[in-house]
C-alpha cells in the first residue's frame, strides 16, 4: 500500500502562519491593511509604554502607484520614538515568526509581537518586497536593515544592512503590502482617532494615501503607571499552563545535543581532549562542586549509559522512568531504542530523580504563583489531598488534572493582584474626552480592581453629554487594553449594558447627544471571537460595567436636572420679555392711555425672585 503512505513533514512556524494567515486577520486586502496598521501601531505604543517614553507615533500609508485601482500595493510605514531594538536582534525579531519579548503576564496591547511578523509575511507574499527596519537605541547610530523571510526555514534573509549616524532614537518599520484603502480607509481612520482618544499621552500622526493628515498632539504629559510583570493567579490556570510552568522551572532533563556536549567539555576542562568514559567520570567527581546544574545532570546520565562524548552525540534520551528505574534512549547509529537499568545505589541516582521529579508541590505553589504563601499552600494541599512534599515531576496526568481542578475550586486564595494592570486613569481619560468631544457635561470613573476566573480586570468609563456632540442618541467607544474595538459591536457586553439602562430614569432622552467611553483592562480580555473585536459577557465584568455606568448616569442626571431648571428660568425670562411688552402695548391702546404702564420693574423683580 505504498500509494497511501503519507509523509509527515514538520513545518516551520512561518509555514504554519503562511498557511493559516486568515486566522491572524490577513484574509483579504481590506482586512489585511487594517490589521497591519493595528499591529505596527500597537507595537510602537507598547514599546514606548514599556520604556516609559511618551509615545510619538507616525503612521503613513502611500500607494505605490496612485493611478492603479484598489486593491493595489501600498507602502505602510510606522515610526516611533521608543527604545529601538538592538541591531543583533533585528533580523530575528522581524525575520522569524515567534520571536518576541512579550511573554510575561501583564497587560499589554498585543501578545508576543506575533502580528507584526504576520504583517511582514503577508507583505512579502503579496508584493515580494523586503521589510525595511530602521532602529536606533542610542539616538546616535541607526541600523538599517532590509529583510526577507525564508518561510520554509523560518529564518531571516538579510538583503541589506548598513548603519548611519542620526539624531533620534526609535524604530521605523516599513513594509510593502497589497491593500484596499478605499474600503479599509474609514476603519483605519476610526482606529487612529479612537487610539488617540484612549492614548491621550501620545502624539499620533497619520498621513493617508490621499494626502490627508490626522494629527493629535498629546493632551496629557504624564504616562500612566506602567504595569508590573507578575506570576499567574491560581484561579487563572489550566493543566497546560501547569505543564509549561513545570518546564519553565528548569527541573528537566537537558537535551543532549552538540551544544550541550560542548558545554560539558568546557566545564570539565576537556575542550580538545578526548577521554574514555571512566576518565570522564573521574574528572567530573573532582570538579563536581564547580559544575553547573545542567552539566551535573548530563554527567549523571552518562554514568548510567557508560558512554564517552563520541557515543553520547549519537543518541537521543527519550524517557527517564523513575518508577521502573529505567532509562530509555534512541541510538541513531543502530536505529533502535535501548533501555538501561538505573542502579538506585549509585550516587548519581539521587541527582537524576531530583531532576526528573522536580521541586516539591509546596515550593512550586509558593514560588510560581501569586497570592499563595506558605500557610495557604499547606491549607491548599490538605484541601486538594496532596502531600506537601510531593514532587511535581512525579505527578501523573490524572494528578495534574486534579491539581488544576483544585486550584480552580479552592476559595481561600486572595483575589488577583491588579498591579499587572495598566488602566489609563481618571484624569487622563477625562482630559482626553474633554479635548475630543468638548461636551457640556463630562464625568469619568475608574472602578476598583475585580477578577473573573483568576484574571484581574479594571473597568474605566467616561460619559460626555451635549456641547459639540451632535449625534442623535448614544455613541459608544469600546476599548480593551487601550485598543479600540471597532467591529462586531452588536454582541459586545458593553453595548448590552448600555442598551439595558433605562435612560429616562436619569432624565436623559433616548436621542440625547451622548458619548460613552468604556475601557476594560485585563491580563486576559475574554474576547468572544478570534477577531478580538467584542468582549464576552462574563457576569463579573458585566457587573462592573453596569456599576460604572450607573454611577456616571446618576452624575449626569444631577447635571440634567440642574440644567433643566436653568433652562426653565431662561425660557421663562424669554417668554416674559417677549409677551409682556405686547400685553402692555395692547392694553394701553385699549384703555385709551398715552403712556405704557411701567412693566419693566416687574420683569426685573421676577428675574430676581427666580434666582
Amino acid at each position, binding site marked *: 500500500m505504498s500509494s497511501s503512505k503519507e509523509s509527515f513533514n514538520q513545518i516551520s512556524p512561518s509555514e504554519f502562519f503562511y498557511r493559516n494567515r486568515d486566522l491572524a486577520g490577513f484574509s483579504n486586502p481590506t482586512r489585511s491593511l487594517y490589521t497591519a496598521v493595528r499591529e505596527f501601531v500597537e507595537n510602537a505604543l507598547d514599546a514606548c509604554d514599556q520604556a516609559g517614553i511618551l509615545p510619538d507615533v507616525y503612521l503613513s500609508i502611500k500607494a505605490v502607484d496612485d493611478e492603479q485601482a484598489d486593491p493595489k500595493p501600498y507602502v505602510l510605514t510606522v515610526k516611533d520614538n521608543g527604545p529601538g531594538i538592538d541591531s543583533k536582534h533585528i533580523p530575528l525579531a522581524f525575520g522569524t515568526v515567534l520571536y518576541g519579548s512579550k511573554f510575561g503576564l501583564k497587560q499589554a496591547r498585543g501578545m508576543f509581537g506575533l502580528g507584526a511578523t504576520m504583517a511582514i509575511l503577508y507583505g512579502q507574499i503579496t508584493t515580494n518586497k523586503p521589510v525595511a527596519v530602521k532602529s536606533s537605541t542610542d539616538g546616535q547610530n541607526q541600523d538599517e536593515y532590509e529583510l526577507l523571510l525564508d518561510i520554509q526555514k523560518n529564518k531571516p534573509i538579510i538583503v541589506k544592512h548598513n548603519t548611519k549616524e542620526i539624531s533620534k532614537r526609535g524604530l521605523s518599520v516599513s513594509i510593502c503590502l497589497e491593500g484596499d484603502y478605499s474600503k479599509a480607509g474609514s476603519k483605519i481612520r476610526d482606529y487612529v482617532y479612537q487610539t488617540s482618544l484612549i492614548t491621550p499621552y501620545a502624539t499620533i500622526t497619520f498621513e493617508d494615501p490621499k494626502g490627508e493628515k490626522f494629527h493629535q498632539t498629546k493632551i496629557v504629559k504624564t504616562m500612566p503607571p506602567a504595569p508590573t510583570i507578575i506570576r499567574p493567579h491560581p484561579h487563572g490556570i489550566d493543566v497546560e499552563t501547569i505543564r509549561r510552568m513545570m518546564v519553565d522551572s528548569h527541573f528537566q532533563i537537558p537535551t543532549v545535543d552538540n551544544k550541550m556536549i560542548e558545554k560539558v567539555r568546557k566545564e570539565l576542562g576537556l575542550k580538545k581532549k578526548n577521554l574514555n568514559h571512566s576518565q570522564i567520570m573521574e574528572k567530573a567527581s573532582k570538579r563536581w562542586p564547580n559544575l553547573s546544574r545542567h552539566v551535573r545532570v548530563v554527567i549523571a546520565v552518562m554514568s548510567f549509559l557508560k558512554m564517552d562524548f563520541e557515543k553520547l552525540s549519537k543518541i537521543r534520551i527519550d524517557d527517564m522512568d523513575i518508577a521502573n528505574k529505567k532509562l530509555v534512549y534512541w541510538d541513531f547509529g543502530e536505529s533502535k531504542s535501548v533501555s538501561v537499568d538505573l542502579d538506585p545505589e549509585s550516587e548519581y541516582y539521587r541527582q537524576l530523580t531530583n531532576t526528573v521529579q522536580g521541586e516539591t508541590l509546596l515550593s512550586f505553589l509558593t514560588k510560581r504563583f501569586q497570592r499563595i504563601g506558605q500557610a495557604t499552600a499547606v491549607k491548599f494541599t490538605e484541601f486538594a489531598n496532596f502531600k506537601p512534599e510531593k514532587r511535581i515531576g512525579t505527578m501523573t496526568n490524572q494528578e495534574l488534572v486534579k491539581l488544576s481542578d483544585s486550584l480552580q475550586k479552592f476559595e481561600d486564595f486572595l483575589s488577583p493582584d491588579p498591579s499587572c494592570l495598566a488602566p489609563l486613569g481618571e484624569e487622563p481619560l477625562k482630559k482626553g474626552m474633554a479635548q475630543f468631544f468638548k461636551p457640556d457635561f463630562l464625568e469619568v470613573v475608574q472602578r476598583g480592581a475585580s477578577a473573573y476566573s483568576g484574571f484581574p480586570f479594571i473597568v474605566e468609563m467616561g460619559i460626555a453629554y451635549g456641547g459639540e456632540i451632535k449625534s442623535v442618541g448614544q455613541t459608544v467607544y469600546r476599548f480593551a487594553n487601550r485598543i479600540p474595538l471597532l467591529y462586531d459591536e452588536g454582541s459586545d457586553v458593553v453595548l448590552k449594558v448600555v442598551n439595558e439602562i433605562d435612560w429616562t430614569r436619569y432624565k436623559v432622552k433616548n436621542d440625547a447627544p451622548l458619548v460613552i467611553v468604556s475601557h476594560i483592562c485585563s491580563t486576559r480580555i475574554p474576547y468572544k471571537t478570534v477577531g478580538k473585536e467584542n468582549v464576552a459577557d462574563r457576569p463579573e465584568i458585566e457587573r462592573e460595567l453596569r456599576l460604572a455606568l450607573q454611577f456616571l448616569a446618576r452624575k449626569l442626571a444631577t447635571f440634567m436636572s440642574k440644567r433643566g431648571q436653568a433652562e426653565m428660568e431662561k425660557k421663562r425670562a424669554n417668554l416674559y420679555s417677549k409677551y409682556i411688552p405686547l*400685553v402692555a402695548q395692547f*392694553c394701553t391702546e385699549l384703555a385709551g392711555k398715552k403712556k405704557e404702564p411701567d412693566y419693566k420693574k416687574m420683569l426685573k423683580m421676577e428675574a430676581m425672585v427666580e434666582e
Partner: protein
Amino acid sequence: MKNKSKASKTSEERRESLAKLLQEQGLKIYNELDRGEFPKFSVPSRSVSNIVYDKKLRQYILGNTASIRSARNMSQLRSFTQLIWLAFFANKLVQEKKSSTLRDIYYSSQAFSIDFEDQPESDNIIVDLEAVLARPREDLHIFPEERSSVFGDLTIEYTVPGYEGKRTNLSDHPDGYLIGPSLSSAELVDTNAELVIAIEKGGLFTRFVEEKVDKKFKAIIVDTAGQAPRSTRYLLKRLHEEMSLPVVILTDGDVYGEHIAMVIKSGSANAAHLRELTVPDAKWIGVWATDIEKYKLPTIPMTESDIKRIYDLQKDPRYQEGMWKKELEVFLKLKRKAELEAFSKYGLTNITDKYLPEKLEIAKSL
C-alpha cells in the same frame, strides 16, 4: 306701519356699551401692570360640566365656574396675550366700524407677532373673549362666512361707514339680502310685516318669494341655510323684540330639522356663554313627524346617525316634555323622514297654498 323710533338707537347703544366694556378690561390690565402685578382675566369655563340648562331663561347658560388666565403662568402667557390682542383688535374694528371674518383674525394676528398656530386656535380665543365680555363675536365685528338671507318688508338704516343713514327695504331684491355685518349692525326702522317665517332651505326660500308668501301672509322670510348662524339668530331675536314680530320656523321633517328649530328657540350648548341669541317664543310649525303621516308625504329611511341623534336629544332637558318629546318619539317609531320638497309631489305650490296656511293656523294655538 310699526315705526320703532325708540329702537332706532339700539345698534349705537350696543356699540357704545361694548366699547366701554373693552376699555374697562384694558384699564384693569393696564393698572395691574402698572402696579407691578401680573395681569389676569377671569374666563368662564366652557367645559361640559359647567354648561347648565336654565329653565327660566329657557336656554343653556354657563355655570359659575371660571378659570383665571394669568400672564404669570407660563403655559397661559401666550393665550393671555392673544386674548388681550384680540380685545385690542376688536376694539379697533368696532371703533372704525369695520368687520372681519374668523379667517381674517387668524391672518391679522400675524402682523402683530401674535402667533396663532392655526385657525382653530384663534377661533377658540375668540370664543374666550365672547365669554369674558358675555358678548357675541358679531358685536365685535367678527363674522363667520355668511350664507343665510332675509326677504320681506323691512326698512333698515345702515350704520356701516359710507352707508350711514342710507335706508333700504329688504323686499327690493327678489333673491333676498345676505345677513352680513352691515345688515347686522343696521338699525331696524319699520315694517308692515306681522310675522317672521324662518325656513331651513334656500330652495324653499326662493319658492316662498316667488309665491309672494311675504305679501300673502304679511311675512318676513328668513333663510337659515341649515343650522341658523349667530347673526341670523340675532336678527330673528331683534325682529321679535324690536319689531314685536312672532317667529315661526319651518324645517325638514327629521330630527335635525327639529333641532334647528330648538336652537333658534333656546340656543346651543356651544353658545352657552351668550344670552342674546335666542327667541324663546319662536314656534316650530313643521314638518313634524306627525305631519308625515297626516299629509302622506313621500319619505326616505333614516340613517343610523339619524337614529343615534334621536337618542342623544332624548337626554337633552329641553326634549323632556310636550311636542318636542312627542315628535322625537314618533320619528323614532317611523324611522323615516321627509324633506320640505316632499310636498312637491302634490304640486309645486302645495306647500304655500295648503300646508303653510294650515300650520300657521295651528301655530296660533301652540
